[in-house]
């Protein structure tokens, strides 16, 4: 190994240490019996995990977050597939404008999107509801799903659809047997990213939740405002573990690589 290469590896190692050390600290703290967070390590315990599963607010928030993330990711993936299909397959007037519009949420601060949605709801005299939260999360994750599915479709040979038609396949059969399987990697990757982005999102949810529809990050945030103990570290550790195992499961099921 040359000196340059060695220096490069060292740089990467330090960089990742810097990025991941706080996360590791959180994981370690979640097993700490001390009652302050972050605090010096006293002894190992699973107490905070037990407490977490007794804590109604956290349990409800986990259910809400899972539901919102699944709904937003599912919705965004569906809409993105058809939008990406049109953007990749056809040329039409206003195509660039449409693409910019759909990727737009990426460039607007989330706080602003959340606040705007809140204002719109009050303007329309609507209650804050789960549906509004799902819509906002969908809008926020759309740019990611759209880009990933567009990349997958850019490699797709649209002659295959002609071939399927000529062999007797209708539009839906062609979609099901040819287009979707071949765009699968992008679709699943888009869904996974969207799910995780929605699950961990705080700024959007802050404005649009009440006590019954609070998502996990919102509950964690408000919990930390009043009390500081390793319970939130346990919740955070579960989120990280959940995200990694969810991704690994999908990789296994759909046989492709997302994690390295």
């Amino acid at each position, binding site marked *: 190994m040359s000196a340059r290469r060695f220096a490069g590896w060292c740089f990467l190692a330090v960089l990742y240490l810097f990025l991941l050390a706080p996360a590791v600290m959180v994981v370690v703290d979640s097993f700490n019996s001390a009652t302050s967070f972050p605090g010096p390590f006293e002894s190992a315990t699973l107490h905070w995990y037990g407490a977490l599963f007794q804590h109604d607010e956290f349990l409800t928030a986990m259910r809400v977050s899972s539901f919102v993330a699944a709904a937003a990711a599912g919705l965004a993936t569906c809409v993105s597939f058809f939008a990406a299909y049109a953007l990749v397959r056809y040329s039409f007037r206003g195509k660039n404008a449409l693409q910019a519009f759909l990727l737009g949420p990426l460039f607007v601060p989330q706080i602003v999107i959340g606040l705007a949605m809140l204002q719109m709801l009050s303007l329309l005299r609507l209650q804050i509801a789960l549906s509004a939260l799902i819509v906002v999360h969908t809008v926020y994750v759309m740019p990611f799903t759209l880009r990933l599915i567009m990349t997958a479709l850019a490699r797709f040979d649209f002659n295959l659809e*002609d071939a399927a038609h*000529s062999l007797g396949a209708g539009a839906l059969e062609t979609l099901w047997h040819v287009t979707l399987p071949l765009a699968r990697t992008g679709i699943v990757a888009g869904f996974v990213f969207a799910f995780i982005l929605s699950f961990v999102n705080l700024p959007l949810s802050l404005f649009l939740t009440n006590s019954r529809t609070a998502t996990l990050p919102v509950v964690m945030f408000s919990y930390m405002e009043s009390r500081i103990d390793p319970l939130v570290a346990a919740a955070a550790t579960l989120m990280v573990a959940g995200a990694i195992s969810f991704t690994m499961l999908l990789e296994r099921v759909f046989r492709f690589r997302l994690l390295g």
Partner: protein
Amino acid sequence: MPHLELSHVAKHYDSTTVLPDLSLEVEAGELMCLLGPSGCGKTTTLRVVAGFEAPDSGKIRLANEDVTALPSQKRDIGIVFQSYALFPHLTVNENVGFGLKMRRRSRAETAQAVNEALKLVQLENVGHRLPRQLSGGQQQRVALARAIAIRPRLLLLDEPLSNLDAKLRDEMRTEIRRVQRTTGITTLFVTHDQIEALALADRMAIMDQGRIVQVDTPVNIYERPAHPFVASFIGQANLIRGTVSAVQGSLLRVVSPSLEIVGQGNGFLVGAAVIAIIKSERFRLASEKPLDGSHCIPVTIESRTYLGATMQYICATAAEKLTIAEPNGADNQKFEIGDAVFAAYRPSDCLILASEDKT
């Protein structure tokens, strides 16, 4: 009654007219080649027949049925694409069986049809492989098997050999002809390669600028072009413009600014503007006038190019240039640049057509 009949088909894209008015008839069991330069509209014609594009006007009849409004999936047309368009995520068996699956055939029936089709293209024992694990020639065979497995009413081939190297191309050409003969499926073969078309076709249709210029057998297309475009497009022909100066039966004398030519043509009067067509390989170069009744044109050798089987000479007269191909042989005389020689041809090898100045 023709098996496939296109009548007055027109197709425009935005402001571009691709097919102004196209009519074509293909008889049952026939292999028809659609030949033309790139951009002549032959691919559009194929896509219209396939049902991928709807014509703006005109009718398409297939086996006595008007299919103009019928979507592609209901036309029962097998297509071999230039890129093969094999489904990359499906095995060879699944690719070939795709059409039967869409037709809700039983598993046993599908398996049997797949086996028969693969046997016909002489491709067995690769059924469980994916397309990317096959060679180009094998992929071509799978594409052909997939198209014929549905027992189509018509087989369309879109430049199927253009992605193969020269040797494999000859082999697959023979293969396609054999499969077509065996199955008797009426076939429309689109190509820009005239050798392919001459070798494969029962009849060929020559296309230019969205129109069909001539439909005939390969021999007649080559020997008796009906139109100057066909004459110049097929083979390597010399086109000499001139005026008829004498008529004796079907023999004509044509004078151009620097030449006097004798050839065959019908229905011309003295003074008619004509084009004389002589294929480059029908000339013989000789240092002295041959005495066998050939017509002779005195020329000067301007350049020569060695092409393996032939030597191509560019010969100059006072105002024209002739391209002449002489076979290379140990005994054949080679001429040097600057030699003054005679270009001899038999008047029956010179075809006189009416000049079409409007084109």
